[in-house]
């Protein structure tokens, strides 16, 4: 069995310094107005008892990734380590991934999709993705998902003393997220779907409807192809009978 790798973001440690965003832009040669890491800030409470909830809008590396399922060109694939990789050179920019993603992460711009590419080369060399290695606040970790979950549990237990709703996000969602988040409050506060899902219709479409459609087309071709010689001979015969 392959090992699941993933990220862990402790949102309670983020200082919104944007180092990860810029480092990621460097790693992926993105121009200044394209980014794979966006941030969402949400205040709760009222002055002075206020909390600033921070989360990154970036690929969650779902185990059951609808973007991989829907991608018609194979630009989105699952690595052996279960991370979701994007090969922009195969991407047609159809934007299906952007529309199907329950987290609204991919962006279809400039005829391609923009989403975390999971620093494939670095990871395959055994290094950390660049957002993790650059995080100055230790808010990001990378490693075996099981290990990350363990450390997240510890951290959440500590946080619960101050934030009773503190929790891990991504343990179960979408078959388990490769981007685990430590939250101080309910996911909804962070603008995260509590129960994200890959619409069941996606599987029906890709696994049943499309193959059936193709089979019917095939059958029609076969039937007409096979009958053509007989039919046209019959027709010619009828004409000559006149």
């Amino acid at each position: 069995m392959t090992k699941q790798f993933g990220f862990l973001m402790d949102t309670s440690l983020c200082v919104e310094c944007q180092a990860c965003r810029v480092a990621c832009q460097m790693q992926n040669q993105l121009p200044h107005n394209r980014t794979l890491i966006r941030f969402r800030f949400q205040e709760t409470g009222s002055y002075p008892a206020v909390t600033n909830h921070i989360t990154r809008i970036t690929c969650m590396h779902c185990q059951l990734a609808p973007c991989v399922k829907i991608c018609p060109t194979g630009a989105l694939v699952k690595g052996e380590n279960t991370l979701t990789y994007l090969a922009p050179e195969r991407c047609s920019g159809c934007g299906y991934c952007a529309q199907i993603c329950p987290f609204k992460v991919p962006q279809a711009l400039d005829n391609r999709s923009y989403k975390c590419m999971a620093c494939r080369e670095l990871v395959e060399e055994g290094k950390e993705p660049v957002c993790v290695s650059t995080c100055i606040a230790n808010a990001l970790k990378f490693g075996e998902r099981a290990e990350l979950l363990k450390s997240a549990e510890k951290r959440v237990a500590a946080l619960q003393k101050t934030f009773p709703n503190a929790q891990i996000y991504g343990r179960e969602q979408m078959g388990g997220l490769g981007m685990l988040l430590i939250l101080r409050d309910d996911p909804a506060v962070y603008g995260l779907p509590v129960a994200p899902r890959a619409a069941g219709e996606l599987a029906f479409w890709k696994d049943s409807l499309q193959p059936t459609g193709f089979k019917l087309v095939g059958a029609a071709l076969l039937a007409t192809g096979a009958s053509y010689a007989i039919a046209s001979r019959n027709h010619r015969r009828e004409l000559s009978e006149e």
Partner: protein
Amino acid sequence: MYKGERMVLRFSRGQRVAHWALAVSFFVLLFSGLTLMIPSLAPLAKGGVARMIHRVFAVVFMLVPVYYALADRKGLQALITESFRYDRDDLLWLLRMPRYFFGRVKGMPPQGRLNAGEKIHHALIILTFITISLTGLVLWFGKGNLSQNEFLGMVMLHDIAMYIMVILTIGHLYFTFVYGALQGMVTGYVNEKYAALEHAKWLASIKAEKTADGKLPQSKSA
């Protein structure tokens, strides 16, 4: 083949232009669309070229009825009404359809300008045309603003309409070549003998017109 017979006008210029515009745009749409369905065609979709082509031809495709209405309003009306109006002969014709499929016209009930098969073909094309156009527009202009379910619903309807259209087109091509009907859609004229054989009621009706004003206005010598 029919030889030495007189020719009767079956398709007006407007009808023919509309038919071919629809046919060409349909095939371009089909192949540009398939790049998003068949992985081995995916490289063609790279960089958004296929999408651009798909959109340009979608506009052509959707403008065909508009053109038809402008060029031949009556023709369009007739097409729509005829496609959804079936008489006893039509039903009988459909029952005997397998005969016709295998190239036998004789013994089929007499038909109007369109035979019952053509009517069903047209009716389904009209329905799928509307479906595929509407879903296409929603996917195009709703990009980024659709929920997962709306998006998937649209994509699937778009797909289903496409399968139906492809199968209809296969059948259409089949009959065209079995019955050598291509010429009619190219020139507009069909052989009077062919008309007598396949569209007896229609031939009778235009002959009736002839007796009214003394000549056969829609015919010429082959």
